[in-house]
């Protein structure tokens, strides 16, 4: 059910929160093109490495990227699992509309029957 298992779950809440920021969306796209270190990512933005590190942590807790140590560098990698969540959300919204329209028909039929007997 969409209202409690998908859209308002903590996981999806974190996902949307993480993607609500333009810098973080940009990091996701750059990370998807190839592994990038946090310091390499930071060169693209007018902010400190620490600030970028914080954005990466938010993305990581949302399951969008994961950090991977390679020598002295921390590489940021995409995590395709978030996509499954997005697809699941679409499926659940579709199911919600199926439920609604089925009930709509039942309520209408009941209303019409009541109208006839009156």
């Amino acid at each position, binding site marked *: *059910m*969409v*209202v*409690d298992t998908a*859209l*308002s779950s903590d996981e*999806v*809440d974190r*996902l*949307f*929160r993480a*993607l*609500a920021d333009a810098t973080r*969306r940009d990091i*996701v*796209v750059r990370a*998807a*093109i*190839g*592994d990038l270190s946090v310091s390499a990512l930071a060169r693209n933005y007018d902010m400190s490495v620490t600030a970028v590190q914080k954005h990466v942590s938010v993305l990581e807790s949302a399951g969008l990227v994961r950090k991977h140590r390679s020598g002295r560098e921390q590489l940021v990698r*995409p995590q*395709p699992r*978030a*996509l499954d*969540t*997005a*697809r699941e*959300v*679409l499926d659940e*919204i*579709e*199911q*919600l*509309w*199926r*439920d*609604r*329209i*089925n*009930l*709509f*028909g*039942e*309520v*209408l039929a009941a*209303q*019409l029957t009541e109208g006839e007997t009156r």
Partner: protein
Amino acid sequence: MTPTVTTDRDSATFTVAAVYEAPTERIWRLWSDPRQLERWWGPPSHPATVVHHDLTAGGVVSYYMTSPEGEKFHGGWRVLGVEAPNLLEFEDYFANQDGSENVDLPISRSTVAIEDQGDGRTRMTITTRYENSAAMEKVLEMGMEEGITSALGQIEEILAEDRSRSSN
């Protein structure tokens, strides 16, 4: 006609189409009467309770759905346009426990068209699009890049195997 629900995944758009053996006014009443609306807006497991219902342009409809465990999920509509009994446009948002909008969750925009077919039947078409959800779109866009990502992953695995072999 059995109602149809179709989903366009690329644009996160849902379309519901149904034809009823009833006049347009009857169909409209299921939207305009809060007691009728709450009989179908929530799924069977989560019945809806309409708290406030002002179906005029600029008006707000607020509701909550109750889970089998008694947990309440709040939501609301910002009514954008109303032409009774044929057209309704609204934005549906998630709300916090106090009814205020939860801006972190996606907003959908719906258009409801109720058309007299001229033969005693009425066609209802509901189009819902998550247009304000840049986040949802971004996540779906990433789907196209998933192929690239998994290819990169495979290259890495091969390189890692080569490395472990050469170090042995």
